Protein backbone atom coordinates (compact mmCIF):
# COMPACT_ATOMS: atom_id res chain seq x y z
CA UNK A 1 0.00 0.00 0.00
CA UNK A 2 2.75 2.40 1.02
CA UNK A 3 4.76 1.46 -2.04
CA UNK A 4 1.83 2.19 -4.34
CA UNK A 5 1.11 5.56 -2.77
CA UNK A 6 4.77 6.60 -2.74
CA UNK A 7 5.22 5.49 -6.32
CA UNK A 8 2.04 7.25 -7.41
CA UNK A 9 3.05 10.50 -5.73
CA UNK A 10 6.57 10.19 -7.09
CA UNK A 11 5.23 9.45 -10.56
CA UNK A 12 2.82 12.37 -10.52
CA UNK A 13 5.50 14.68 -9.17
CA UNK A 14 7.93 13.47 -11.82
CA UNK A 15 5.41 13.98 -14.61
CA UNK A 16 4.54 17.48 -13.34
CA UNK A 17 8.22 18.38 -12.97
CA UNK A 18 9.05 17.06 -16.43
CA UNK A 19 6.21 18.99 -18.03
CA UNK A 20 7.31 22.15 -16.24
CA UNK A 21 10.95 21.59 -17.20
CA UNK A 22 10.04 21.12 -20.85
CA UNK A 23 7.66 24.07 -20.70
CA UNK A 24 10.29 26.30 -19.15
CA UNK A 25 12.59 25.53 -22.08
CA UNK A 26 9.89 25.83 -24.73
CA UNK A 27 8.31 28.93 -23.24
CA UNK A 28 11.52 30.62 -22.19
CA UNK A 29 11.26 34.38 -22.37
CA UNK A 30 14.47 36.32 -22.49
CA UNK A 31 14.38 38.91 -19.78
CA UNK A 32 16.21 42.16 -19.84
CA UNK A 33 19.57 41.34 -18.18
CA UNK A 34 19.90 45.02 -17.24
CA UNK A 35 17.13 44.60 -14.64
CA UNK A 36 19.47 42.46 -12.56
CA UNK A 37 22.30 44.97 -12.93
CA UNK A 38 20.11 47.94 -11.98
CA UNK A 39 18.77 45.92 -9.06
CA UNK A 40 22.32 45.39 -7.85
CA UNK A 41 22.96 49.14 -7.97
CA UNK A 42 19.86 49.85 -5.87
CA UNK A 43 20.08 49.48 -2.10
CA UNK A 44 17.39 46.79 -1.93
CA UNK A 45 15.60 48.43 0.98
CA UNK A 46 12.18 47.93 -0.66
CA UNK A 47 11.01 50.95 1.33
CA UNK A 48 8.55 52.13 -1.32
CA UNK A 49 9.86 55.69 -1.10
CA UNK A 50 10.10 55.79 -4.90
CA UNK A 51 6.39 55.10 -5.24
CA UNK A 52 6.83 51.61 -6.70
CA UNK A 53 6.04 48.30 -5.02
CA UNK A 54 9.69 47.48 -4.46
CA UNK A 55 13.19 47.81 -5.83
CA UNK A 56 12.54 45.35 -8.68
CA UNK A 57 9.40 47.18 -9.82
CA UNK A 58 11.36 50.43 -9.85
CA UNK A 59 14.28 48.82 -11.73
CA UNK A 60 11.92 47.58 -14.45
CA UNK A 61 10.15 50.95 -14.62
CA UNK A 62 13.34 53.00 -14.78
CA UNK A 63 14.60 50.83 -17.64
CA UNK A 64 11.43 50.79 -19.69
CA UNK A 65 9.56 53.98 -18.88
CA UNK A 66 11.22 57.12 -20.24
CA UNK A 67 9.29 59.22 -17.70
CA UNK A 68 10.76 57.48 -14.66
CA UNK A 69 13.92 59.32 -13.57
CA UNK A 70 16.99 57.42 -12.32
CA UNK A 71 17.16 59.47 -9.12
CA UNK A 72 13.78 58.49 -7.72
CA UNK A 73 15.30 56.16 -5.15
CA UNK A 74 15.78 58.20 -2.00
CA UNK A 75 17.95 55.56 -0.32
CA UNK A 76 20.50 55.65 -3.16
CA UNK A 77 23.88 57.33 -2.70
CA UNK A 78 24.85 59.83 -5.43
CA UNK A 79 27.21 57.16 -6.82
CA UNK A 80 24.38 54.65 -7.06
CA UNK A 81 22.17 57.22 -8.80
CA UNK A 82 24.96 57.90 -11.29
CA UNK A 83 25.32 54.16 -11.92
CA UNK A 84 21.58 53.72 -12.48
CA UNK A 85 21.62 56.75 -14.76
CA UNK A 86 24.47 55.39 -16.86
CA UNK A 87 22.83 51.95 -17.07
CA UNK A 88 19.55 53.44 -18.23
CA UNK A 89 21.06 56.10 -20.43
CA UNK A 90 19.18 58.85 -18.63
CA UNK A 91 20.47 62.08 -17.17
CA UNK A 92 21.00 61.77 -13.43
CA UNK A 93 19.41 65.17 -12.95
CA UNK A 94 20.11 67.49 -10.11
CA UNK A 95 17.59 66.23 -7.62
CA UNK A 96 17.94 68.08 -4.39
CA UNK A 97 18.76 65.59 -1.62
CA UNK A 98 16.21 65.92 1.14
CA UNK A 99 16.08 65.21 4.81
CA UNK A 100 13.31 64.86 7.37
CA UNK A 101 12.86 67.85 9.65
CA UNK A 102 10.97 68.13 12.94
CA UNK A 103 8.91 71.31 13.20
CA UNK A 104 8.64 71.50 16.97
CA UNK A 105 10.73 72.87 19.82
CA UNK A 106 8.59 71.58 22.64
CA UNK A 107 11.40 71.68 25.23
CA UNK A 108 12.25 75.31 24.62
CA UNK A 109 8.58 76.20 24.53
CA UNK A 110 7.74 74.39 27.76
CA UNK A 111 4.42 73.24 26.35
CA UNK A 112 1.80 72.94 29.07
CA UNK A 113 0.20 69.55 29.76
CA UNK A 114 -3.54 69.08 29.55
CA UNK A 115 -3.48 65.81 31.44
CA UNK A 116 -1.17 62.93 32.32
CA UNK A 117 -1.41 60.27 29.67
CA UNK A 118 -1.11 56.68 30.80
CA UNK A 119 -2.42 54.77 27.81
CA UNK A 120 -0.76 52.91 24.97
CA UNK A 121 2.68 54.38 24.31
CA UNK A 122 1.92 55.42 20.77
CA UNK A 123 1.47 58.86 19.26
CA UNK A 124 -1.50 57.65 17.24
CA UNK A 125 -3.24 56.31 20.36
CA UNK A 126 -2.45 59.44 22.42
CA UNK A 127 -3.70 61.68 19.61
CA UNK A 128 -7.11 60.00 19.78
CA UNK A 129 -7.66 61.28 23.32
CA UNK A 130 -8.34 65.03 23.23
CA UNK A 131 -5.59 65.52 20.60
CA UNK A 132 -2.92 64.25 22.98
CA UNK A 133 -1.73 65.18 26.47
CA UNK A 134 0.01 68.42 25.37
CA UNK A 135 -1.83 71.71 25.49
CA UNK A 136 -0.50 72.40 21.97
CA UNK A 137 -2.17 69.98 19.59
CA UNK A 138 0.63 70.45 17.04
CA UNK A 139 3.52 69.45 19.32
CA UNK A 140 5.72 66.37 19.13
CA UNK A 141 3.92 63.71 21.17
CA UNK A 142 7.20 61.91 21.71
CA UNK A 143 5.98 58.31 21.82
CA UNK A 144 8.11 57.43 18.82
CA UNK A 145 5.68 56.18 16.16
CA UNK A 146 8.03 57.69 13.59
CA UNK A 147 11.07 56.08 15.23
CA UNK A 148 9.44 52.67 14.95
CA UNK A 149 8.35 53.37 11.38
CA UNK A 150 11.75 54.60 10.17
CA UNK A 151 13.25 51.78 8.06
CA UNK A 152 16.72 53.32 8.26
CA UNK A 153 17.11 53.71 12.01
CA UNK A 154 17.65 57.44 11.59
CA UNK A 155 15.45 58.72 14.43
CA UNK A 156 15.33 58.51 18.18
CA UNK A 157 13.45 60.08 21.08
CA UNK A 158 15.22 62.27 23.60
CA UNK A 159 13.50 64.39 26.25
CA UNK A 160 10.14 63.55 24.74
CA UNK A 161 11.16 64.96 21.38
CA UNK A 162 12.13 63.15 18.21
CA UNK A 163 15.61 63.67 16.80
CA UNK A 164 16.80 62.90 13.31
CA UNK A 165 20.23 61.78 12.10
CA UNK A 166 20.57 63.44 8.68
CA UNK A 167 23.39 61.09 7.70
CA UNK A 168 21.08 58.11 7.98
CA UNK A 169 17.91 59.80 6.72
CA UNK A 170 17.14 58.88 3.12
CA UNK A 171 14.04 61.08 2.88
CA UNK A 172 11.82 58.09 2.14
CA UNK A 173 8.99 59.98 3.84
CA UNK A 174 7.77 57.06 5.98
CA UNK A 175 8.00 59.12 9.18
CA UNK A 176 6.21 62.05 7.55
CA UNK A 177 3.30 59.78 6.69
CA UNK A 178 3.31 58.21 10.15
CA UNK A 179 3.30 61.33 12.34
CA UNK A 180 -0.29 61.97 13.46
CA UNK A 181 0.49 65.63 14.17
CA UNK A 182 2.18 66.26 10.81
CA UNK A 183 5.16 67.93 12.43
CA UNK A 184 7.67 66.16 10.20
CA UNK A 185 8.49 67.56 6.81
CA UNK A 186 10.96 66.75 4.06
CA UNK A 187 13.17 69.71 3.31
CA UNK A 188 16.24 70.05 1.06
CA UNK A 189 19.47 69.19 2.87
CA UNK A 190 20.83 72.54 1.79
CA UNK A 191 17.79 74.48 3.08
CA UNK A 192 18.88 77.79 4.54
CA UNK A 193 16.10 78.68 6.95
CA UNK A 194 13.21 76.85 8.49
CA UNK A 195 10.36 77.50 10.91
CA UNK A 196 10.76 75.34 14.00
CA UNK A 197 7.03 75.23 14.72
CA UNK A 198 4.12 73.65 12.89
CA UNK A 199 1.21 75.15 14.82
CA UNK A 200 -1.84 76.21 12.91
CA UNK A 201 -3.30 78.13 15.82
CA UNK A 202 -3.67 81.90 15.96
CA UNK A 203 -0.95 83.89 17.72
CA UNK A 204 -2.77 84.24 21.02
CA UNK A 205 -3.57 80.56 21.25
CA UNK A 206 0.08 79.68 20.56
CA UNK A 207 1.30 82.13 23.21
CA UNK A 208 -1.03 80.53 25.73
CA UNK A 209 0.43 77.07 25.34
CA UNK A 210 4.05 77.54 24.23
CA UNK A 211 6.67 80.17 24.92
CA UNK A 212 8.56 79.49 21.72
CA UNK A 213 5.91 78.71 19.07
CA UNK A 214 5.27 80.66 15.87
CA UNK A 215 2.60 83.31 16.40
CA UNK A 216 2.02 83.78 12.67
CA UNK A 217 2.74 87.52 12.87
CA UNK A 218 3.91 87.51 9.29
CA UNK A 219 6.99 89.69 9.90
CA UNK A 220 9.16 87.24 7.98
CA UNK A 221 6.74 87.20 5.04
CA UNK A 222 6.86 90.98 4.70
CA UNK A 223 10.64 91.17 4.96
CA UNK A 224 11.66 88.28 2.69
CA UNK A 225 13.10 89.87 -0.47
CA UNK A 226 12.77 86.62 -2.39
CA UNK A 227 9.06 86.37 -1.51
CA UNK A 228 9.49 82.71 -0.75
CA UNK A 229 7.67 82.70 2.60
CA UNK A 230 3.91 82.23 2.65
CA UNK A 231 1.29 81.46 5.23
CA UNK A 232 -1.11 78.62 4.61
CA UNK A 233 -3.65 77.78 7.34
CA UNK A 234 -1.79 79.94 9.87
CA UNK A 235 1.34 77.87 9.25
CA UNK A 236 4.48 79.38 7.72
CA UNK A 237 5.72 77.69 4.57
CA UNK A 238 9.07 78.33 2.96
CA UNK A 239 9.68 77.73 -0.72
CA UNK A 240 13.18 76.35 -0.27
CA UNK A 241 13.83 76.23 -4.00
CA UNK A 242 13.24 79.95 -4.36
CA UNK A 243 15.11 80.63 -1.12
CA UNK A 244 18.17 78.71 -2.30
CA UNK A 245 17.98 80.34 -5.71
CA UNK A 246 17.93 83.81 -4.19
CA UNK A 247 21.05 83.05 -2.22
CA UNK A 248 22.66 84.61 0.83
CA UNK A 249 22.41 88.20 -0.41
CA UNK A 250 19.23 88.65 1.66
CA UNK A 251 21.32 88.31 4.81
CA UNK A 252 18.57 86.10 6.27
CA UNK A 253 16.52 89.14 7.12
CA UNK A 254 13.55 86.90 7.89
CA UNK A 255 15.47 85.25 10.73
CA UNK A 256 16.46 88.61 12.09
CA UNK A 257 12.92 89.95 12.00
CA UNK A 258 11.29 86.96 13.68
CA UNK A 259 10.23 88.25 17.11
CA UNK A 260 9.93 84.75 18.58
CA UNK A 261 13.22 83.42 17.18
CA UNK A 262 11.32 80.48 15.75
CA UNK A 263 12.57 81.07 12.20
CA UNK A 264 16.19 79.95 12.26
CA UNK A 265 19.17 79.41 10.02
CA UNK A 266 19.95 75.78 9.32
CA UNK A 267 23.27 75.79 7.57
CA UNK A 268 26.30 77.74 8.84
CA UNK A 269 27.57 78.30 5.30
CA UNK A 270 24.44 80.10 4.30
CA UNK A 271 24.54 82.60 7.09
CA UNK A 272 26.84 85.16 8.55
CA UNK A 273 24.72 85.19 11.67
CA UNK A 274 24.60 82.75 14.52
CA UNK A 275 23.06 79.51 13.33
CA UNK A 276 20.57 78.83 16.04
CA UNK A 277 19.03 75.74 14.52
CA UNK A 278 22.20 74.31 13.11
CA UNK A 279 22.57 71.58 15.67
CA UNK A 280 19.02 70.48 14.90
CA UNK A 281 19.73 69.42 11.37
CA UNK A 282 23.29 69.64 10.24
CA UNK A 283 25.51 68.75 13.13
CA UNK A 284 25.70 65.06 12.50
CA UNK A 285 28.17 64.28 15.23
CA UNK A 286 25.80 65.77 17.77
CA UNK A 287 22.80 63.99 16.41
CA UNK A 288 24.43 60.63 16.13
CA UNK A 289 25.78 60.76 19.67
Amino acid sequence: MITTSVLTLFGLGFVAASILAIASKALYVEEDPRVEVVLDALPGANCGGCGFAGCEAYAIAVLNDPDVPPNKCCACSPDAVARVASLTGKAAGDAEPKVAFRRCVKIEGKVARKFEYAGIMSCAAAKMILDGPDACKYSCLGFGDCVRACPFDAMWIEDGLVHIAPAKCTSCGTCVRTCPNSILELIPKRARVMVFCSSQDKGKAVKDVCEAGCISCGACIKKCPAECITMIDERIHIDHKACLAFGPSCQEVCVEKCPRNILRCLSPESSTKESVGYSEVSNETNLNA
Partner: protein
Amino acid sequence: MDTFLLFISAIFVNNIVLAQYLGNCPYLGCSKEKSVSIGMGAAVIFVTIMATIFTYLIQKHVLIPFHLGYLQTIVFILVIASLVQFVEMFLKKMVPPLYKSLGIFLPLITTNCAVLGVAILVQRKEFDFVTALLYAVAAGAGFMLALVILAAIREQFEVTRIPRAMRGTPIGLVMAGIMSLAFMAFKGMIA
Protein backbone atom coordinates in the same frame (compact mmCIF):
# COMPACT_ATOMS: atom_id res chain seq x y z
CA MET B 1 -33.08 23.28 -15.85
CA ASP B 2 -30.60 21.36 -13.69
CA THR B 3 -27.71 23.27 -15.25
CA PHE B 4 -29.46 26.56 -14.56
CA LEU B 5 -30.04 25.56 -10.94
CA LEU B 6 -26.42 24.47 -10.62
CA PHE B 7 -25.29 27.89 -11.79
CA ILE B 8 -27.67 29.81 -9.52
CA SER B 9 -26.76 27.59 -6.60
CA ALA B 10 -22.98 27.91 -7.08
CA ILE B 11 -23.06 31.66 -7.69
CA PHE B 12 -25.64 32.87 -5.18
CA VAL B 13 -26.72 30.20 -2.71
CA ASN B 14 -23.49 28.28 -2.08
CA ASN B 15 -21.09 31.02 -3.10
CA ILE B 16 -17.58 29.69 -2.64
CA VAL B 17 -16.45 32.75 -0.66
CA LEU B 18 -19.56 34.06 1.04
CA ALA B 19 -21.26 30.78 1.97
CA GLN B 20 -18.36 28.32 2.11
CA TYR B 21 -15.69 30.74 3.33
CA LEU B 22 -13.01 29.55 0.94
CA GLY B 23 -10.46 31.82 -0.73
CA ASN B 24 -10.68 34.57 1.85
CA CYS B 25 -7.09 35.79 1.38
CA PRO B 26 -7.42 36.88 -2.24
CA TYR B 27 -10.98 38.00 -1.46
CA LEU B 28 -9.64 40.63 0.96
CA GLY B 29 -6.25 41.14 -0.67
CA CYS B 30 -7.38 41.78 -4.24
CA SER B 31 -10.57 43.70 -3.59
CA LYS B 32 -9.22 47.21 -3.32
CA GLU B 33 -9.66 48.12 -6.97
CA LYS B 34 -12.32 46.95 -9.39
CA SER B 35 -9.93 46.47 -12.32
CA VAL B 36 -7.65 44.26 -10.22
CA SER B 37 -10.56 42.25 -8.87
CA ILE B 38 -11.85 41.57 -12.39
CA GLY B 39 -8.38 40.37 -13.46
CA MET B 40 -8.03 38.18 -10.40
CA GLY B 41 -11.55 36.80 -10.85
CA ALA B 42 -10.85 35.92 -14.48
CA ALA B 43 -7.57 34.24 -13.55
CA VAL B 44 -9.29 32.21 -10.83
CA ILE B 45 -12.06 31.09 -13.20
CA PHE B 46 -9.44 29.96 -15.72
CA VAL B 47 -7.32 28.10 -13.18
CA THR B 48 -10.38 26.55 -11.52
CA ILE B 49 -11.55 25.11 -14.84
CA MET B 50 -8.10 23.79 -15.71
CA ALA B 51 -7.60 22.38 -12.20
CA THR B 52 -10.99 20.68 -12.27
CA ILE B 53 -10.21 19.01 -15.61
CA PHE B 54 -6.86 17.64 -14.44
CA THR B 55 -7.90 16.66 -10.93
CA TYR B 56 -11.03 14.98 -12.28
CA LEU B 57 -8.99 12.90 -14.71
CA ILE B 58 -6.38 12.02 -12.08
CA GLN B 59 -9.06 11.07 -9.54
CA LYS B 60 -10.90 8.86 -12.00
CA HIS B 61 -7.90 7.27 -13.70
CA VAL B 62 -5.23 7.15 -11.01
CA LEU B 63 -6.51 7.57 -7.47
CA ILE B 64 -9.71 5.45 -7.66
CA PRO B 65 -8.27 2.49 -9.65
CA PHE B 66 -5.29 2.26 -7.26
CA HIS B 67 -7.48 2.82 -4.14
CA LEU B 68 -5.51 5.94 -3.22
CA GLY B 69 -8.41 8.23 -2.35
CA TYR B 70 -6.66 9.33 0.84
CA LEU B 71 -3.95 11.00 -1.26
CA GLN B 72 -6.55 13.29 -2.81
CA THR B 73 -5.57 16.54 -1.03
CA ILE B 74 -1.84 16.28 -1.57
CA VAL B 75 -2.20 15.18 -5.19
CA PHE B 76 -4.64 18.00 -5.93
CA ILE B 77 -2.30 20.56 -4.37
CA LEU B 78 0.53 19.20 -6.51
CA VAL B 79 -1.59 19.41 -9.64
CA ILE B 80 -2.85 22.95 -8.90
CA ALA B 81 0.62 24.27 -8.05
CA SER B 82 2.12 22.79 -11.21
CA LEU B 83 -0.77 24.07 -13.27
CA VAL B 84 -0.41 27.61 -11.99
CA GLN B 85 3.31 27.49 -12.74
CA PHE B 86 2.57 26.29 -16.24
CA VAL B 87 -0.13 28.90 -16.81
CA GLU B 88 2.28 31.58 -15.64
CA MET B 89 4.95 30.46 -18.10
CA PHE B 90 2.42 30.12 -20.90
CA LEU B 91 0.98 33.60 -20.38
CA LYS B 92 4.42 35.16 -20.05
CA LYS B 93 5.35 33.80 -23.47
CA MET B 94 2.07 33.96 -25.34
CA VAL B 95 0.02 36.81 -23.82
CA PRO B 96 2.51 39.22 -22.19
CA PRO B 97 -0.06 42.03 -21.63
CA LEU B 98 -2.34 39.69 -19.66
CA TYR B 99 0.68 38.29 -17.81
CA LYS B 100 1.71 41.81 -16.84
CA SER B 101 -1.70 42.74 -15.53
CA LEU B 102 -2.06 39.47 -13.62
CA GLY B 103 1.64 38.99 -12.85
CA ILE B 104 1.52 39.27 -9.10
CA PHE B 105 -1.82 37.48 -8.70
CA LEU B 106 -1.00 34.39 -10.70
CA PRO B 107 1.37 32.85 -8.11
CA LEU B 108 -1.19 33.76 -5.43
CA ILE B 109 -3.72 31.43 -7.05
CA THR B 110 -1.46 28.50 -6.11
CA THR B 111 -2.46 29.04 -2.50
CA ASN B 112 -6.07 29.93 -3.23
CA CYS B 113 -8.07 27.34 -1.36
CA ALA B 114 -11.16 28.15 -3.45
CA VAL B 115 -9.50 26.35 -6.38
CA LEU B 116 -8.67 23.32 -4.24
CA GLY B 117 -12.12 23.55 -2.67
CA VAL B 118 -13.87 23.33 -6.05
CA ALA B 119 -11.69 20.38 -7.12
CA ILE B 120 -12.55 18.48 -3.93
CA LEU B 121 -16.25 19.45 -3.91
CA VAL B 122 -16.61 18.16 -7.46
CA GLN B 123 -15.39 14.73 -6.27
CA ARG B 124 -17.52 14.81 -3.14
CA LYS B 125 -20.68 15.64 -5.06
CA GLU B 126 -19.80 12.93 -7.60
CA PHE B 127 -20.49 15.09 -10.63
CA ASP B 128 -19.94 13.77 -14.11
CA PHE B 129 -17.24 15.43 -16.20
CA VAL B 130 -19.46 18.01 -17.94
CA THR B 131 -21.32 18.95 -14.75
CA ALA B 132 -17.97 19.25 -12.97
CA LEU B 133 -16.78 21.69 -15.60
CA LEU B 134 -19.99 23.73 -15.37
CA TYR B 135 -19.71 23.76 -11.59
CA ALA B 136 -16.10 24.99 -11.86
CA VAL B 137 -17.20 27.83 -14.15
CA ALA B 138 -20.08 28.76 -11.82
CA ALA B 139 -17.96 28.62 -8.65
CA GLY B 140 -15.29 30.76 -10.30
CA ALA B 141 -17.95 33.22 -11.42
CA GLY B 142 -19.32 33.32 -7.87
CA PHE B 143 -15.83 34.12 -6.59
CA MET B 144 -15.47 36.88 -9.17
CA LEU B 145 -18.91 38.30 -8.32
CA ALA B 146 -18.09 38.51 -4.61
CA LEU B 147 -14.69 40.03 -5.38
CA VAL B 148 -16.04 42.68 -7.75
CA ILE B 149 -18.90 43.68 -5.41
CA LEU B 150 -16.52 44.05 -2.47
CA ALA B 151 -14.02 45.99 -4.62
CA ALA B 152 -16.80 48.34 -5.75
CA ILE B 153 -17.80 48.95 -2.13
CA ARG B 154 -14.21 49.42 -1.00
CA GLU B 155 -13.58 51.93 -3.77
CA GLN B 156 -16.35 54.02 -2.22
CA PHE B 157 -14.49 53.94 1.11
CA GLU B 158 -11.86 56.23 -0.41
CA VAL B 159 -14.32 59.10 -0.32
CA THR B 160 -16.15 58.08 2.85
CA ARG B 161 -15.50 59.28 6.34
CA ILE B 162 -14.51 56.19 8.31
CA PRO B 163 -13.16 56.23 11.89
CA ARG B 164 -9.39 55.85 11.71
CA ALA B 165 -9.30 52.60 13.65
CA MET B 166 -11.70 51.03 11.14
CA ARG B 167 -9.93 52.10 7.96
CA GLY B 168 -8.38 49.50 5.67
CA THR B 169 -8.61 45.84 6.58
CA PRO B 170 -11.02 46.18 9.58
CA ILE B 171 -13.79 47.78 7.53
CA GLY B 172 -13.00 45.32 4.71
CA LEU B 173 -13.60 42.40 7.08
CA VAL B 174 -16.82 43.96 8.38
CA MET B 175 -18.03 44.44 4.80
CA ALA B 176 -17.13 40.85 3.96
CA GLY B 177 -19.22 39.71 6.93
CA ILE B 178 -22.17 41.90 5.98
CA MET B 179 -22.00 40.66 2.38
CA SER B 180 -21.96 37.10 3.65
CA LEU B 181 -25.08 37.84 5.71
CA ALA B 182 -26.72 39.47 2.69
CA PHE B 183 -26.06 36.41 0.56
CA MET B 184 -27.67 34.24 3.25
CA ALA B 185 -30.96 35.65 2.02
CA PHE B 186 -30.58 33.29 -0.95
CA LYS B 187 -30.58 30.26 1.35
CA GLY B 188 -33.72 28.26 0.92
CA MET B 189 -34.22 29.57 -2.61
CA ILE B 190 -33.09 26.20 -3.89
CA ALA B 191 -33.78 23.20 -1.74
